[in-house]
């Protein structure tokens, strides 16, 4: 029983990271009707940016997190402006999707040139004794990753709900033509959505750094897991992305602990296939997302 609880707890940490990525997938999907294949690579870019800030500039954890999220926001903005925005009105969905694949390959390739395939140690700025809670080991990483993820999610939610820009973004994602008629700058809301998703991915990269290590292809598998989480939760749904992420993390740990690590990925992606065929809208059905 203790082991079971510990396994579930362990899955939550990676689950929060998947949730951050899933949120990014959902945000871009909702605003742009686009699956962003570069999501995992933006996560990797965030991890490397965080690594450089922590190791070369010697910043403590919180500034590293805030700065990385900001830098990734602008990186996302630049990527959207340079690669996705041009001729986006007449481009097909497939065309845009292929552009994101291009971005993904570009990010991986440039990281390979700069850092090679080696693993780098992210400084353990927050390590400390784990907290014991009735026989359970609650690692500091879980507390930090969980708090930071929830805080970011809260900020995002408040932004979408209570600011004019956030409202404009939601309006544009529900009805592009209608939004344009009332004077909303839709290309701008699209850029904003992409930049926000890049910021979320970057946060994921910084948060996982101290638990793992940083390397060039780290975003590939995690990106796919984030995508799975978004689909399980319901592409386009914010609460769905969070629940989906935590579910994927726990399923992964439980299948490793009770079945075998060989089957871990097969089980997660098997669930993805089942969800796609049985309940393609995910646990949280999208309300108005597909009406545009």
């Amino acid at each position, binding site marked *: 029983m203790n082991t079971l609880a*510990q396994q579930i707890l362990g899955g939550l940490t990676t689950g929060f990271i998947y949730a951050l990525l899933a949120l990014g997938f959902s945000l871009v999907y909702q605003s742009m009707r686009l699956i962003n294949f570069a999501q995992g690579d933006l996560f990797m870019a965030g991890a490397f940016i965080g690594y450089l800030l922590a190791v070369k500039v010697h910043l403590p954890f919180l500034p590293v997190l805030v700065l990385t999220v900001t830098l990734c926001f602008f990186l996302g903005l630049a990527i959207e402006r340079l690669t996705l925005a041009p001729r986006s009105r007449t481009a097909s969905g497939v065309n845009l999707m292929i552009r994101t694949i291009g971005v993904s390959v570009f990010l991986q390739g440039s990281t390979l040139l700069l850092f090679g395939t080696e693993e780098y140690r992210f400084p353990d700025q927050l390590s400390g004794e784990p907290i014991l809670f009735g026989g359970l080991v609650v690692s500091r990483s879980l507390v930090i990753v969980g708090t930071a993820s929830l805080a970011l999610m809260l900020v995002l939610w408040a932004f979408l709900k209570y600011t004019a820009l956030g409202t404009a973004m939601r309006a544009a994602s529900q009805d592009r033509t209608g939004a344009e008629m009332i004077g909303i700058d839709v290309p701008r809301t699209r850029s904003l959505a992409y930049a926000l998703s890049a910021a979320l991915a970057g946060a994921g990269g910084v948060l996982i750094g101290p*638990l793992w290590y940083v390397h060039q292809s780290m975003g590939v598998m995690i990106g796919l897991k984030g995508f799975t989480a978004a689909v399980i939760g319901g592409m386009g749904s914010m609460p769905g992305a969070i629940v989906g992420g935590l579910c994927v993390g726990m399923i992964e740990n439980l299948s490793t602990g009770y079945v075998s690590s060989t089957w871990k990925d097969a089980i997660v992606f098997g669930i993805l296939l089942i969800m796609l065929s049985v309940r393609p809208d995910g646990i949280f059905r999208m309300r108005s997302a597909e009406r545009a």
Partner: protein
Amino acid sequence: MAAPLTGNGASFGISQRNAVQLAMAEINAGGGISGRQLQLLVEDTKTEPPVAVTAVNKLIYQDKVPVLIGSAASLDVPAYMEMLEKAHIPQILPVAVLPKITESHLKWTFRNALNDKIAAAKMAEFAYNTLGARKIALLIEDSAFGSTGLRFAERLKELGVEPLTVERFTRGQIDFGPQLLRIRSFGATHIQFWGYYADYAQVARKLKELNMKVQLMGNQAPVTNKTIELGGDAVEGAINICLFVPTSEDPAAKAFVQKYQTEYGEVPDTWAAESYDGMRILAQALQVAGAVDPFKIRDALAATKDFKGLTGTISFNKDGDAEFKETFVTKIEGGRFVPFKMAASH
């Protein structure tokens, strides 16, 4: 010589080239072999098996070398080794540890590196005899490479102890919690790991986080400074099997480390020591053969007995694998690999 000077295996290949050059310069300075100077031709395999085939082809048929020092990259070797059998060119392999190479009943390949399977058996003997470990769990990578670690379980059973559990993981796994919690539930006091250095460091960090007081033991691959960089203080006290550590007190080892450092400005790793030994075993065989004749060189290599090298006392068995009299085990102490020496196991 064929060596992976670029690509993934570059760190091995560069150690190999440096050490072979060092050994050859010493031999030539001492008058060469029967008055003849040795000459080294180096081809880069780029850590890509097809390139290795081309490189070895060129060395054999264009440059007409009588003997080859084989690639440090384990996966390069199966690609070209059959070619040597046909061409009747002997090869000495100083770094590649892949068991499959010597399981192919080759007549022209001799390996003075430690076959990973032999390493697994030796590690089991070490755990059983020296550490007195009885409650051991295995944690191995889910791949052909990791499965070599199963030889550890086999040898342990022969000694009369059943491993408590065999847990598998995928390379690059983030959270080792699931496997380690299972291992904890079996009450293991020792964990034998078989896999890649980055995962080894992750395991050590997770053990520390879970506050599990067990002895971590590992294969040869994690014996690199990267393990210490990634694992930090969590890898302190971890034990690995390894042929050579530069902190060795042995006078020959000390002299080698000093010469290597003067020449190349860095501390030699185990791969460098193995390559240095490989070159010297080859020189001894050339001396014995007395002629530049691949058949005679092969026979002389096969007859190598109790060669005293930096990495131990080496004889070749019928598969062409080096049998070492000693087992070197290294321990991480104060952020360095230091010798954890034990007596001969038989």
